[in-house]
């Protein structure tokens, strides 16, 4: 009989549930987006996020079990995100998972959301050649990690302030593109000209990132254009180019320093066509494999939590399902 992990993810604004086998096959996956709820606020409104999780989580679990026809006996354990994330949102997933574990007599394991993201590139039979450099670029995180194996992870550079995804969304909001604006900014950038000189923060310094200065620079530029006509496409193109220059230069530096066999890009910003093209070039130049998970696994989902849960079981690490906001990448 095949065994599955029931993965539950509710760390931010998406309610996600999935069933994943040990060989990384996703039997069923549901992600309920809350974009409609948050668009009027120009960002995620934590109270509404948590409330929507309460509404969505049981129907999502029900849908995953019905679609997959997996029985409770076939569930090996329940893996649920314990952090980092929004406290109110995490509590909904953690308490629901705890109750399911009690009712079904299954072990419930609290999973590090970041480890889930790092494993997302190996879902559905994909393979990473280790050692690998991983760039996680999402709305909540931006960092570079060196993975000697799927269990041996070292953080080698992270953002000192905002994440790249958050910067995309905030610049999009400044340009009146709603929420989440990241994908629209990326799309508009392809039509514009790179003719505005925005800074490339920390581009020559180590493997750390900083995006708040770039965000302020875009804001100052827009404030100054009182009478002039703003070409949104050009602002987007110049901004995206600045972000890409920073991300790609850090990836190149990490490859030179750590000599990996593959480069893996995960997180919502991995959907950016500019980032995909840029990293492809770098990997060709250095002769290493580029691993880009499908977009559906690049953003928050529960399949990655399910796959990470198998690592915990293999390593015999069973953190209790309790919220942990300041969890480190190296932590299980």
């Amino acid at each position, binding site marked *: 009989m095949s065994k599955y992990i029931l993965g539950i993810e509710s760390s931010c604004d998406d309610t996600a549930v999935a069933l994943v086998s040990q060989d990384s096959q996703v039997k069923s996956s549901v992600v309920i987006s809350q974009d409609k709820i948050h668009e009027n606020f120009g960002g995620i409104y934590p109270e509404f996020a948590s409330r929507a999780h*309460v509404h969505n989580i049981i*129907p999502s679990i029900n849908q995953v079990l019905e679609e997959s026809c997996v029985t409770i006996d076939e569930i090996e354990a329940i893996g649920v995100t314990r952090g980092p994330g929004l406290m109110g949102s995490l*509590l909904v997933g953690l*308490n*629901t998972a705890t*109750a399911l574990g*009690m*009712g079904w007599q299954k072990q419930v394991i609290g999973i590090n959301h970041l480890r889930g993201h790092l494993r997302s590139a190996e879902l559905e039979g994909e393979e990473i050649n280790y050692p690998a450099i991983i760039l996680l670029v999402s709305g909540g995180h931006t960092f570079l990690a060196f993975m000697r194996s799927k269990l041996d992870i070292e953080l080698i550079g992270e953002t000192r302030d905002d994440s790249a995804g958050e910067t995309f969304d905030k610049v999009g909001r400044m340009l009146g593109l709603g929420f989440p604006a990241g994908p629209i900014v990326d799309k508009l950038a392809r039509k514009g000209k790179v003719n505005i000189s925005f800074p490339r923060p920390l581009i020559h310094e180590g493997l750390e990132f900083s995006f708040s200065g770039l965000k302020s620079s875009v804001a100052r530029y827009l404030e100054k254009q009182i009478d002039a006509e703003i070409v949104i496409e050009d602002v987007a193109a110049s901004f995206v180019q600045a972000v890409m220059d920073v991300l790609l230069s850090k990836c190149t530096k990490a490859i030179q320093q750590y000599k990996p066999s593959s480069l893996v890009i995960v997180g919502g910003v991995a959907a950016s066509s500019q980032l995909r093209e840029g990293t492809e070039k770098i990997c060709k130049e250095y002769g290493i494999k580029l691993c880009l998970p499908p977009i559906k696994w690049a953003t928050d989902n529960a399949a990655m939590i399910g796959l990470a849960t198998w690592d915990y079981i293999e390593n015999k690490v069973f953190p209790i399902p309790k919220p942990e906001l300041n969890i480190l990448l190296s932590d299980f």
Partner: protein
Amino acid sequence: MIVSISTSLSQFIVSISKDNEILCYKKRERIPNGETHIDLILKECLEELNMKVSDISALVVDVGPGGTSSVRTGVSFANGLSYSLDCPIIGISSVDIIGIENYLKYKKSICCLFKSVKGNYFAGFYDGMNTKFIYTKVEEITQYIRSSFSEIVLCGNKDIIQNLELKLADINVIISDIYKVNPEILATYAHKFLDKTRKYPNLPVPVTETNIQEWS
């Protein structure tokens, strides 16, 4: 065996009853940041009674008003238990539970007041049968009480009800010190609440644009 859960008002309660008899209840003061585990309190109760989780036949859960994260802790846990055990669950208001206890004592209309955000208050009215909610500024609550009651029992946040009492000089006001959920009342009335049972009452409402309005 009916399990009742209340986490809304700075205390985590589990009470267990069967055939109108209270078997066990436990109450813990809530510690912030998710450190109070409702599952451990339930396990303690079950161990004490030498019973299993599968012996639970129905659930009652307090859906607030109360602290946002703490209400969701209890509701998420109870819904997960209800789903996994495939047993019925009913959500009841904390005002119902507090109202019942006050009504048993005073036999008069009850108003429970809770402070909310942006200068608004939750006023829950209980008259032994029905519960009515008003969510507005204290001036409008005062106006409503004046026009609807000649006598009222006030309970809830102390400073607010004392302030309200001064504005209600023309009607008979009784100040009650019963303003928290009583586990015994919760257990005693659990079977009555369950008469109204639906499955997963707080849940399968899809998030649509229509209920966003109601939230904001």
